[in-house]
């Protein structure tokens, strides 16, 4: 079920009413309702894949309980690795099997050996990368004794399949989300209103910004050989805002929806395109995944504690794995590698933690230095996104080459460029608005006190969503 679909518009109020009125604030009933609603939400795509979620739930619940009573370190480790291997095994089969197979075939044929193994004709279960990482965080935290294992199967099931963030995050830590299923939840007016505002803001970013940008990004990327350099650069910029609007919009809707049910999810985006260097960008983009990799991969590998070689190795590992997490394609690995290359100088010069606060703190506008830093970081990000969007690495390289060799200073020339100018204006509105609220959790926190002005903003956004939505595109991150 898509957040921007009629199905969800009917589903959400029904679940909301059942949750607050029918369960009568009974915690177990509320949790059970969340599990049932989440299974309906997920099964709307393909009910068969529910079996994977249910299996993962039982597996990690049982392993958690065994870990609680087990003191033998060897057995504890075996239990942990059982969970990791099985969970990542599912991910490997469904997401990466054909990728590895194709590359083995290519490698063998390079050495003159033709092999023809069977590829799997399978579809990728929606959101498998997200919930797999979420359940893994539980088992790892229990293993490390950072978290008390749960005895409540219903609460644990709700934690694994909580529908607002089930298919595209934020990837919640068990330490943050699971305890919320144990506590009595009461309706809070301010929290619910804030949730509705965040949903509205998320819908605007998804339906108006991302979906409209997608039309032009698709046009330019699909026919890149026909365009001059400036058009290609514009195409890359359209994709840059498409992926931001799409993914941060989804996160906003997920967080806002959770707040309607009394839950607090972690912030996933913090105006990343205002970052002054690439390290800051990665502290502000897909925060739940970056911190997951930091805590469960980078730090266990030694983090930045060792010598230079160790730091370089760990940086590359985390970025390459992060790239590969996004999809079974070399384009994502190149994208990850490129970001590692951007990051490395900062790490080696020990400047990766220079910009920790928000840009232009206490000022209305950035100074020239900050403007330059933001501009260069943004451009580097745009160029990296080209690989993320390209069909394959050859196209990605050609696209980048053509940007700089086919008239990057010419006027962009493509059909519909005047309509596209409207999208650019909307992007400028988004930039202005997000700059204004760059310290806040989402774009609609700082609203005028006068109710008529607030309602004008609400109706303005609703009108844009209804009358200026782009053609329906599936959320990009669903494929991951």
């Amino acid at each position: 079920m898509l957040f921007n679909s009629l199905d969800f518009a009917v589903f959400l109020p029904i679940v909301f009413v059942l949750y607050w009125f029918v369960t009568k604030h009974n915690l177990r009933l509320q949790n059970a309702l969340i599990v049932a609603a989440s299974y309906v939400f997920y099964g709307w795509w393909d009910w068969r894949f529910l079996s994977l979620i249910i299996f993962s739930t039982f597996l990690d619940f049982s392993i958690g309980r065994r870990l609680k009573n087990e003191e033998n370190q060897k057995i504890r480790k075996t239990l942990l690795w059982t969970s990791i291997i099985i969970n990542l095994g599912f991910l490997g089969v469904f997401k990466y099997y054909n990728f590895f197979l194709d590359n083995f075939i290519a490698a063998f044929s390079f050495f003159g050996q033709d092999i023809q193994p069977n590829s799997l004709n399978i579809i990728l279960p929606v959101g498998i990368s997200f919930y797999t990482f979420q359940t893994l965080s539980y088992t790892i935290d229990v293993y490390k004794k950072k978290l008390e294992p749960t005895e409540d199967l219903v609460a644990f099931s709700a934690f694994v399949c909580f529908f607002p963030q089930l298919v595209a995050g934020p990837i919640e830590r068990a330490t943050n989300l699971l305890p919320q299923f144990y506590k009595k939840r009461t309706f809070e007016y301010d929290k619910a209103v804030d949730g509705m505002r965040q949903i509205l803001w998320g819908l605007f970013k998804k339906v108006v910004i991302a979906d409209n940008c997608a039309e032009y990004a698709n046009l330019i990327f699909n026919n890149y050989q026909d365009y001059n350099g400036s058009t290609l650069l514009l195409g890359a910029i359209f994709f840059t805002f498409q992926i931001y609007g799409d993914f941060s919009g989804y996160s906003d809707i997920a967080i806002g929806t959770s707040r309607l049910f009394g839950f607090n999810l972690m912030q996933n985006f913090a105006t990343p395109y205002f970052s002054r260097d690439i390290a800051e960008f990665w502290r502000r983009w897909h925060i739940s995944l970056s911190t997951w990799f930091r805590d469960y991969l980078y730090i266990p590998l030694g983090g930045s504690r060792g010598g230079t070689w160790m730091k370089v190795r760990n940086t590359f590992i985390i970025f390459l794995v992060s790239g590969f997490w996004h999809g079974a394609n070399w384009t994502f690995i190149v994208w990850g590698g490129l970001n590692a290359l951007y990051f490395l100088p900062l790490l080696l010069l020990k400047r990766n933690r220079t910009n920790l606060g928000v840009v232009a703190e206490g000022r209305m506008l950035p100074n020239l230095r900050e403007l330059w830093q933001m501009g260069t970081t943004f451009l580097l990000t745009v160029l990296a996104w080209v690989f993320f969007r390209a069909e394959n690495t050859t196209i990605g390289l050609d696209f980048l080459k053509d940007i700089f060799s086919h008239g990057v200073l010419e006027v962009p020339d493509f059909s519909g460029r005047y309509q596209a100018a409207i999208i650019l204006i909307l992007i400028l509105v988004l930039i202005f608005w997000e700059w204004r609220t760059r310290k806040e959790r989402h774009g609609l926190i700082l609203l005028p006190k006068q109710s008529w002005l607030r309602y004008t903003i609400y109706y303005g956004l609703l009108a844009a969503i209804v009358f200026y939505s782009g053609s329906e595109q599936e959320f990009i991150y669903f494929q991951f």
Partner: protein
Amino acid sequence: MKIFIKKTVLLLIPLLLILGTPNYLAFIYGEAFVDFEKVIEGDRFELIGQKFSESNTLWLKTKIINKRKPLIVALGSSRVLQFRRQMFKDEFFNYGYTTTKNSTILPTLKLVSRESKLKYLIVGIDQWNFNKSWDKTSYPNYQSRFPRLKNSLDVVSLFTLVTEILKFEGNHTSSKGKIGLNAIHHGNGFRRDGSRNYGVLIDKLFKGDTTYEDYKFQDTFRRIEDGNRRFQYGNKIDTSQLNYIYDLIDYCESNDIKLIFFLPPFAPTVWKVMTESGNYSYISDLDNHMKTISMKYDIPYFNFSGPGVLNYTDEEMIDGFHGSESVYSKILLHIACENSDFAEIIDTEVIHGALESRESLNIFD
């Protein structure tokens, strides 16, 4: 909580009214929220004519053809849509309006399941597909499963829908088995056998309605005068296009499918203007190439570009380049006389009867 719900509802009421009403109408008229899988599976339609949804024609017809598994199929653009089930002795499906380019004829045919019983294939090849000067990119192939959005129309379409419904002045025909605004209001859409019912358009023609877009072929003549919209000028064909014909012949031979080609008809006066202008000599070049191919591969081929042997009239045309059922009946009668294989499947007796007793351009209604 009550205040929260009250405020949310009040905020959304205007939106619900603006979107809810047209979406409800879209549902009632079958323009959105139609589960075509179920419709086709249960054979629950007489006419499908959605105003906003021609983009899913290929998907729909492919679903139907693979369910029905007909013995005889007509394939091509809108210029084969007048062949009907009654014209044949055996199970027939009109797979027309699914391919508008030579390059997509074979890929479209390959969508027909391997388990199908297809034995006879009638292919109409549009003359302009061989003209080098024709801008093929302007005519998309219909590939999507869903018309626009899966479950609702965009806002502009919704308001067009409401306006159309409000200003409709004709008589509502029974909507039983009809899906889509065009089918319900205008009787216009695809029948169960895949053929096209032009509905009220036929009545307009019959009554000599001057508001009809191609009244007395004025729009077609404009195309000829301007040399655009499929009527670009040309002397020689683009011979590379013939490769698609060779590929199709190979495929049919290896799958034991009896194939027949024909060039679809233009209105007699239109054809006269075209030939006299000398701007369309690529069609005679095409005819020569097709005759050679026909002889070489022993594939029946007919050129029905002009009235010639069929002796049809302007009054039997729907517009400048679409014949009516009466013209296509004559085409089949001619084929039956010339080719013994196809004579076996064409119901000449029924066609003769229908032609004699016809009261409209739709000779079987």
